[in-house]
């Protein structure tokens, strides 16, 4: 099969033309937009699964675009880490897009407007795929801007306030991308190369120079902003809350993870932390900021009365776990962080989708107004939400437990008791804000005056339930099979030289 020789580039090459074809297909028939989006994300997910299998069998794949060999040309690199995260991103995106038909039709009611919505969503996914597979720093910047611009659009189609949230995100996001670009300028002028592998080879020669240290720090700050690393998280709560539910379910699970992946790439694969600017503790700084972010996000989540806003703050806390793994910089921490990329993607997609169900059927997702009625009328949605919530708290055998477990092992390995304390404390805080919702859904009797409106409330349609139940099942199944994921994929993904 000739075309599969090009498989590293295929997810991008499927999603980009699909994003352009969707508006054209929408002219013929509006429903085609949805079907095309599902088809292309499904294909991309299938190809990524194939790519991961290839990488597991034969090691990293280097794909030279146009046959130009690096460092002259741009290369795409699929190793265990990128192939794994590409698969996670594309599968989650497929499920969320599959889910989105009814929700998008309801949340973007203007006729014909959901056609560009799908086009923009695919552009964003295409950008994410590009960031994940590219082996070239400037190419990464271009993909970053493609995904970010699409992301602002996806946020801005929400309710009345969404444009303001999107504008703030645009300002912050552009500052982040600009910092990355300035940092790259420093590194490029000192090394003369943009290729990641080439940069890694040249870097030891310039490691002592201030330009290298400044460049690296600027790049990390830039992606820290994109990743919503505390205290650069300011854009996130509004953006996730004001975006339509299907957008938040698409952005929240994968958006910040892609930025976290770039930090993995920068700090562990290209610039070995010990060499970067005379032992500059960049990774450690990320770790400490993340630890602060975990506590901050969890406490703020407890204070929220709106489910989507609570989930947004919880995202800040959860991205902190990934940063914590970066800060630990040992193999347990790394495995825990990468595992958490997958786990949090599954959990957050599930939780944002169920929040979308509540919004669609009840007309709101304010936590103090939830009660037993919601559960009786929407038993499957509530059950799925509970599975996601329990997994966030970290109850085995749900996936959420295992990434925390590896992170905890990593902190013990480093004898870093403060980080261990943070992980344990945040699990308790998670329990506080999720059990609060579960308690209302299962135990609080519905008030008598709700009797009239409740007859209108019913379970979400099957097209929405199927992806949600699949995600809920995935939480348990992936949790039970986590040993296979860790042994089969992640241990091979641990960067060389890390213990």
């Amino acid at each position, binding site marked *: 099969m000739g075309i599969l020789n090009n498989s590293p580039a295929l997810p991008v090459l499927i999603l980009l033309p699909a994003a352009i074809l969707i508006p054209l297909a929408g002219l013929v028939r509006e429903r085609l937009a949805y079907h095309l989006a599902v088809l292309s994300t499904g294909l991309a997910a299938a190809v990524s699964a194939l790519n991961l299998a290839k990488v597991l069998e034969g090691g990293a794949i280097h794909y030279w675009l146009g046959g130009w060999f690096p460092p002259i040309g741009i290369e795409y690199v699929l190793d265990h880490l990128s192939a794994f995260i590409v698969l996670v991103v594309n599968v989650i995106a497929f499920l969320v897009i599959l889910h989105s038909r009814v929700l998008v039709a309801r949340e973007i009611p203007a006729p014909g407007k959901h056609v560009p919505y799908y086009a923009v969503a695919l552009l964003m996914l295409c950008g994410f795929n590009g960031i994940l597979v590219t082996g070239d720093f400037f190419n990464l910047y271009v993909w970053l801007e493609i995904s970010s611009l699409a992301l602002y659009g996806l946020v801005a189609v929400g*309710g*009345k306030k969404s444009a303001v949230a999107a504008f703030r995100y645009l300002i912050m996001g552009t500052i982040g991308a600009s910092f990355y*670009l300035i940092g790259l300028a420093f590194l490029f*002028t000192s090394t003369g190369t943009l290729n990641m592998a080439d940069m890694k080879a040249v870097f030891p020669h310039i490691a002592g120079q201030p330009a290298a240290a400044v460049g690296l720090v600027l790049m990390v700050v830039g992606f820290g902003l994109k990743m919503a690393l505390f205290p650069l998280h300011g854009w996130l709560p509004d953006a996730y809350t004001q975006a339509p539910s299907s957008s938040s379910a698409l952005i929240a699970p994968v958006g910040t993870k892609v930025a976290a992946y770039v930090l993995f790439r920068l700090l562990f694969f290209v610039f070995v932390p010990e060499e970067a600017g005379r032992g500059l503790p960049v990774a450690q700084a990320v770790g400490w900021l993340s630890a602060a972010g975990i506590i901050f996000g969890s406490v703020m989540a407890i204070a929220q009365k709106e489910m989507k806003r609570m989930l947004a703050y919880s995202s800040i806390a959860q991205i902190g776990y990934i940063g914590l793994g970066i800060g630990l910089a040992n193999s347990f921490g790394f495995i825990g962080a990468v595992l958490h990329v997958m786990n949090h993607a599954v959990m957050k997609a599930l939780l944002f989708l169920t929040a979308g169900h509540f919004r669609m059927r009840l007309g709101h997702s304010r936590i103090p107004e939830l009660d037993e009625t919601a559960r009786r009328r929407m038993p499957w949605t509530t059950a799925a939400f509970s599975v996601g919530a329990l997994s966030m708290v970290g109850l085995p055998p749900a996936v959420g437990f295992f990434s925390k477990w590896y992170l905890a092992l990593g902190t013990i390995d480093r004898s870093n008791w403060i980080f261990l304390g943070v992980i344990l404390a945040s699990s308790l805080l998670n329990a506080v804000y999720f059990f609060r919702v579960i308690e209302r859904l299962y135990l609080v009797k519905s008030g008598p005056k709700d009797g009239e409106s409740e007859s209108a409330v019913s379970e979400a349609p099957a097209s929405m339930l199927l992806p949600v139940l699949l995600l809920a099942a995935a939480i348990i199944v992936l949790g039970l099979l986590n040993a296979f994921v860790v042994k089969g994929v992640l241990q091979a993904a641990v960067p060389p030289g890390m213990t």
Partner: protein
Amino acid sequence: MSEFLLGHYGYWLVFVLMALGLYGMVVKRNLVKKLIGMAVLQVAIIMFYVSTAVKWEATIPILDPALGASDPARYISPLQHCLMLTAIVVGVATSGVGYALVVTIWNRYKTLDEGELLERMKDDGDSE
């Protein structure tokens, strides 16, 4: 010291422009001024890249029979310019999205001042 200041005047200019741009984006309350700050920041970065490609007594990177191909110091590097062409396109696209959002915000709230905007947004609940 004066050598340090004067010898790097290009970088100082870029540095001042970057600071101005960041100041505009973060401190200015008017949304359009924020976008202007963004443009200034982007231009500063573009100038920084291009200034690193400067070489005295060198020519465009097309093979000149009189100079030969043996001495790379006689040709300037085209890469920075190519990169910045892309960055200019990205900057234009970002400005486009930014101004589109500004128009939307104006249509919804009839103000572009951040303080007033926050006042008027208080009345709205979170999006449904």
